[in-house]
């Protein structure tokens, strides 16, 4: 059994430097996830601000409408379709860096979910906090930035962490546009060695470890933010 295991391991990862497919793939997965998360936070934060501003003050109705269209379309269609539309339709007739395409697709997709998470956070802050800010002489923007959003962020952190875990794993469909991320790396090895369990288990284990590391840091951040309660 261990001999067989060693032979399989050799064939799947050592021979022809096949481990490079996994390592290069991992690099792309991390790159896509990292920048997509950043884009998602920026987009989501803006959309959440616009939508909650509209709900509180009835201003910015036009932007609010745009945001609602964005949320409906992005949350209503599969991310794989969005990815392929961006690659084959939006950037239809040009050479474009596929990591960039993936970052855009996953970032825009994640932004829609993050927006609703942020908005729920903002709406969860008691209106009294808002009134207190205003009565202390803060204007709307200052109240939002100095009083409401810091508390909201603390409330939504678990949901936000959850969204990024989903995003990390969702990047596994990026292989559809022939980008070599972690899952595609495993697929390439699988197509060479006809061995299913080793590349797939290895890829699964790498995702799992990444999620565990990420969860650890989110929990640490949560703890630290909770300390400021006292």
């Amino acid at each position, binding site marked *: 059994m261990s001999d067989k295991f060693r032979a399989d391991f050799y064939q799947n990862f050592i021979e022809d430097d096949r481990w490079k497919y996994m390592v290069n793939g991992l690099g792309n997965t991390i790159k896509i996830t990292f920048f997509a998360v950043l884009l998602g936070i920026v987009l989501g934060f803006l959309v959440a601000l616009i939508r909650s501003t509209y709900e509180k003050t009835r201003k910015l109705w036009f932007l609010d409408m745009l945001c609602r269209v964005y949320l409906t379309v992005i949350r209503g269609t599969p991310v794989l379709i969005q990815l392929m539309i961006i690659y084959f339709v939006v950037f239809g007739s*040009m*050479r474009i860096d596929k990591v960039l395409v993936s970052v855009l697709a996953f970032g825009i997709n994640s932004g829609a979910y993050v927006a609703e998470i942020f908005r729920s956070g903002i709406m969860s802050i008691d209106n009294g906090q808002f009134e207190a800010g205003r009565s202390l002489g803060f204007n709307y923007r200052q109240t939002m930035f100095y009083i409401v959003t810091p508390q909201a962020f603390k409330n939504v952190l678990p949901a936000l962490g959850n969204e990024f875990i989903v995003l990390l794993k969702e990047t596994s469909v990026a292989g559809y546009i022939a980008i070599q991320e972690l899952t595609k790396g495993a*697929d390439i090895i*699988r*197509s060479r060695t*006809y061995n*299913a369990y080793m590349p797939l288990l290895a890829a699964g284990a790498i995702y799992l470890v990444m999620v565990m590391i990420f969860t650890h840091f989110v929990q640490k951040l949560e703890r630290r933010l909770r300390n400021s309660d006292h």
Partner: protein
Amino acid sequence: MKKQVLALVMAAVMAGSLTACGSSAADTTTAAQAATTAQAEEKKEETETETEAAGDEDGVLVMATNAEFPPYEYHDGGEIVGIDVEIAEAIAEKLGKTLEVEDIAFDSIIPEIQSGKADFGAAGMTVDEDRLKNVDFSDPYTTASQVIIVKEDSDIAGPDDLSGKYIGVQLGTTGDIYATDYEEEGSTIERYNKGFEAVQAMLQGKIDAVVIDIEPAKVFVSQNEGIKILDEALTVEEYAIAVKKGNTELLEQINGALAELKDSGELQAIIDKYISAE
């Protein structure tokens, strides 16, 4: 009432998804076991197959293929048709069996044969050393070349010009394996899940060339303006039918049927029907 129906439907869906998970988990274990006990099984097969005729006892031959590879196998009005399918049908007829075609991903065909879920694989498969480690191949039934498709105004004139270029392939095909050699010369290989996606990417200027089997290449070129197949092929190779390693009985039956089909001219007739029709 409505809620009850909904609950029932959801329960059914969940049960369905559970069994789906269950069977796929079983696949991997059987594939793993098949791999680990390959040698032991080889001996066992010899004794077993003597009593057991080719394939199942119920007279069904299961063929694994990936029906996205015209004209060898493709979907046509809900049916899977093509050269490989017709050859397989002719073989099954000669063996007195009914053929069942199973459409799966190309890189799952060999695991499917190894695990015994399919009796043989016919999917425009080239005999190569890596594959021979995992399955046995019949005598070749046709030859095919890996050709290079480029845009008509391309500066690529032959395989030598591929270095440093962006080359599109279908993941796991021989075109992929051969094109991968060009990675050392600074080329970038883009592995698409489907052949037409690689062609589409080339039409959009995202990649410089596509390396793929000659027959699908002809179809792609006939359906799209402004692209051509280079005269000089990348490689020339032979297609054969894959069976489970050690299943010599079925292999011999297939080889016998293939030889008869070749002699009677039926084989050539099937190939001509699809290829000259283009």
